[in-house]
């Protein structure tokens, strides 16, 4: 089954010094995403399946096995969702998170 991911509206995100930093409005936690995590975050529009995001944004850009990349992406998404950074669903997310206060 495909999963869909969207950026939470309860966060502020900003590219700082080449690093994607995300602040959770829920508990004030501050996160820094590495390059691959940042690619997934930026593609998390709520309507593109995670598998497709991994294929287009990770496998096409980084030297990684598709199965391993998807496994890592699922773990990452699960972790970010547990912190309220991402929203995960089995179906497309009706109101995908438009970039919430994201600036570069």
């Amino acid at each position, binding site marked *: 089954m495909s999963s869909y991911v969207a950026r939470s509206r309860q*966060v502020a995100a900003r590219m*700082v*010094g080449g690093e994607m*930093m995300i*602040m959770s409005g829920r508990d004030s936690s501050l996160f820094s995403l590495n390059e691959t995590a940042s690619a997934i975050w930026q593609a998390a529009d709520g309507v593109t399946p995670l598998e497709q995001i991994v294929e287009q944004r990770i496998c096409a850009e980084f030297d990684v096995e598709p199965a391993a990349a998807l496994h890592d992406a699922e773990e990452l998404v699960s972790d970010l969702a547990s912190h309220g950074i991402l929203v995960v669903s089995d179906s497309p997310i009706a109101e995908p998170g438009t970039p919430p206060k994201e600036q570069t």
Partner: protein
Amino acid sequence: MTATVEHLAASIGIGGITVRLHVTDSTFLRMLDQRYAGFPSNDESADCEFEVELVAPRSLDDPAIEEDVCVRREDSTWIVTRGDFQAKWDPVARRGRIRQSANPYSIDSVLRIVHTLVLARQGGFLVHAASAVRNGRAFLFAGVSGAGKTTVSRLAPADATLLSDEISYVRREPGGYYAYGTPFAGELAKPGENLRAPLAALYLLGKGLENRIEPVPTAEAVRELMSNILFFAEDSELVQAVFQSACEFVEHVPVRRLTFVPDARVWEMIQ
């Protein structure tokens, strides 16, 4: 026979924001006047007005006295509570109420919290940092307890004017970032001078075996600044605003790591 209640008020101007405290106790008013003597405000209209109701202090045996500060919003009203006070403030009406015993520490905390709420919407913040003005430019020295804020303040030369040894006040204005003096003192127990100056740099403090100044990567600067910003509100929108403010600040004000031997030579590098 009709009882009359005398209405008294203290107007306190910090960072260009006037808070007017209405009290009915002349002894408490005198305490306020003395504590904030360097920060009077003559503004006709206050940015925030509070009625202060004095109550008997809680018993030290009352477990409620240990309650941590909680800042939350109910509709448009901020509710601020801690073991030693309760306050409400409606920023739209610009009015509020404080309930506390006759002590300076509670009112100091309420003032700090109200200022953090006001500044959060304006790109500014309060930060755990000493600050001083030298040659017309302001410098912040941030760090946790023990990092050297008090030491740097004590070592300040005669031509440096201290804005605070503990909590510094930063505003974003059309001309850039400015530091303001505050009455919020730390170990020096001495309020800062009531003046403002354009910010030249933020130094992240650390004591070491030699004096040196090093650049700080931008993302690390944001992380360290965020860890030193005073912000209490459990409010998603304002948390996001403070984060964006910290990012903006780091993009406009040089952030450096200042390792120093605790003697006066450190100020040779702060010009």
